[in-house]
């Protein structure tokens, strides 16, 4: 399942780091964190999607506390 969210991310460098970190979560098939457009795209296993999404947000916040995904 692939889903696109609006997100809040303040710095280009952090966006790259968060993207890298989320990509390493088991079950994540692909992840894009677009700093310029403030878009977060996550592709992950269907049945664990919610769980992986929450984990991704948690990891993102440890790197940049201001990271937030809208509509979750």
């Amino acid at each position, binding site marked *: 399942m692939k889903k696109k969210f609006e997100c809040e991310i*303040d*710095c*280009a*460098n952090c966006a*790259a*780091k968060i993207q890298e970190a989320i990509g390493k979560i088991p079950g994540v098939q692909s992840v*894009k964190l*677009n*700093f*310029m*457009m*403030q*878009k977060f795209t996550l592709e992950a296993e269907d049945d664990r999607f919610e769980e992986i999404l929450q984990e991704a947000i948690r990891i993102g916040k*440890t*790197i940049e*506390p201001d990271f937030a995904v809208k509509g979750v």
Partner: protein
Amino acid sequence: MSEKLIRERNKLLLSVILFLILLIVEKTGILPFLPEHSLWYLPLYLIPYFLSGLSVVKECFLGIKNRRPFDEALLMTVATLGAFLSGEFAEAVAVMVFYQMGELFQSYAVGKSRKSIKELMDIVPELAHIEREDGTVDTVDPDEVEVGDMLLVKPGERVPVDGIVRQGESMVNTAALTGESVPREVFPGEKIISGCINGEGMLRVEALKAFEDSTVSKILELVEEASEKKSKAENFITKFARIYTPIVVYSALALAILPSLGLFLGTKIGLVSPEFFAAHPPLTWLYRACTFLVVSCPCALVISVPLSFFGGIGAASREGVLVKGSNYLELVSKLKVVVSDKTGTLTKGNFAVQEIEPWEGISKEDLLRTAAMAENGSTHPIGLFILSAYKKWMEDSSKANASPEDVVVESDPMKHSSGKESNSLPFPENTENRSGAGLISIVEGCKILVGKAKLLEEEGISVPQQEKGAATICLVAKDGQYLGRILIADEVKESSKEAVSKMKQQGIENVVMLTGDSTPVAEAVGRELNLDSVYGELLPAQKVEKVEEILSSLTEEGEKRNGYLAFIGDGINDAPVLSRADVGIAMGAMGSDAAIEAADVVIMDDDLSRIPTLIAIGKKTMRIAMQNIVFALTVKFLVLILSAVGLANMWAAVFGDVGVTVICIINAMRLIQNPKSI
């Protein structure tokens, strides 16, 4: 400005004011009741320091806790703590305050350019009116429209999804999608794409696609994802940033320890005088190391280079050119060869009568009319071109007859007869088709021949020598007498010639045309447009071979390239060539998903003059990106060297970090803020 940004700004303003008051009080000593020893000022300076920098210090510890230490927060924290340790309280606070100012400006600038891009891309329809079968109208989000729904598009509204007009006529504005400012006329049966703005008329449109498959969604997705295909310049920055920071940090560490240690040992063995050691105490070296740390952040590059490309892509979108990645914008700026298809790109793709050349003593109208009579009822393309040319001729001349003076002079029956004539061209009593040569018709008792020289000669009519040319030539004879000839050719687009000459001015060395049409046709178009070379009679696979041949001429030994190649096609059946070229450009792609998929660059309308514009945008983008890279690196290295030998203080370092970032961002924003300057 967002609320968060305003809060940050106010906090920062307050700390700047506090800091300045403290600085003045300390340096001038105007408040005598405060003790002179500077250590007393430490707690006072800590107030503006934490007011502005608490979040940075927090982030630094968070980074350490999560084992991702090398970030800006750590660098700034260490640098400022080092400055405090060296006794330079004012500078420590200044570094933090200015750093935060730079960050604030950065967020502001990025937010602003993001907004400009969104405005450029302001094509998203807000709502859709669905007309139900019982006549009620639901106003919904475009997302909820289903294929087959009947939509009402009111004057001034955006078309919500791609569809087909079922009722109503209007002029729609496609400027946001194609860059074309002249409105397009639509009427029932005409396809209409989402994102266009409806003019004066009310339209009933049947939805052909859901919103997520419509042109608007495709375009938005494409532009959004464009910033993910990185140019070489951006990749360089990413790699550079990864090694630059650790190198500077370790150099700083070395600078803090090694010179002091060396000098100390030097005094012990008598190589260094104790006076020299005293003049360069360990604290001085610590201070210099901290200066290093301040310039160690590559933010100026990390933010401004992608921002330049982002701006370039945005500026191109405004011109109706979708660029699918920063890398293509970079390649476009280095093009040496432009290869183009002919039909639909350089020429209009619609054959038409170009020239009517009557023989001595014959009028153009007689010639055309005779040919049209012979072809009347024909379904052969040549016949249709001649008939439509005749119809147009009649319309033009009846328009001329309708001018005011003529109305007075000419009598009514005259006008009537001319009108009647155009509608009642006599049909041939008999027509004989000579395949590949032409036809022979008997009309009103006369024998008319229309076709190649071969046909006329076979019938014993002598014709003048015909040169080989671009056009299909139709010779006409009536009752054994040669009347003249009609030339039929593909029309060259008005904009093509100018576009080609502009491309050459921009440094394109070779403009090439590939076509499946006959070589004489290709050569004639080549001469008209001043192309460097043309290749005709090519099958699609041969086009790929030709492109590969040109590509290999651009490649020196090994993989090194000394120029890039773009292929321009209409995107319909040249997908293999589009993908083989360095940059595949599809033209006239509005509404064609296949072309949008296959190409690297999509030109929404079919105007070739967008290509020089695109090249100009590419060049300007590269120039700005390069300026930023060179400027930022020069300043940073200068500051590093000067501070290592003690010639630059922390104020210079703050400029090297924050100042450079701000200047680079302003430079990068030129493209977005001022797209007309290209």
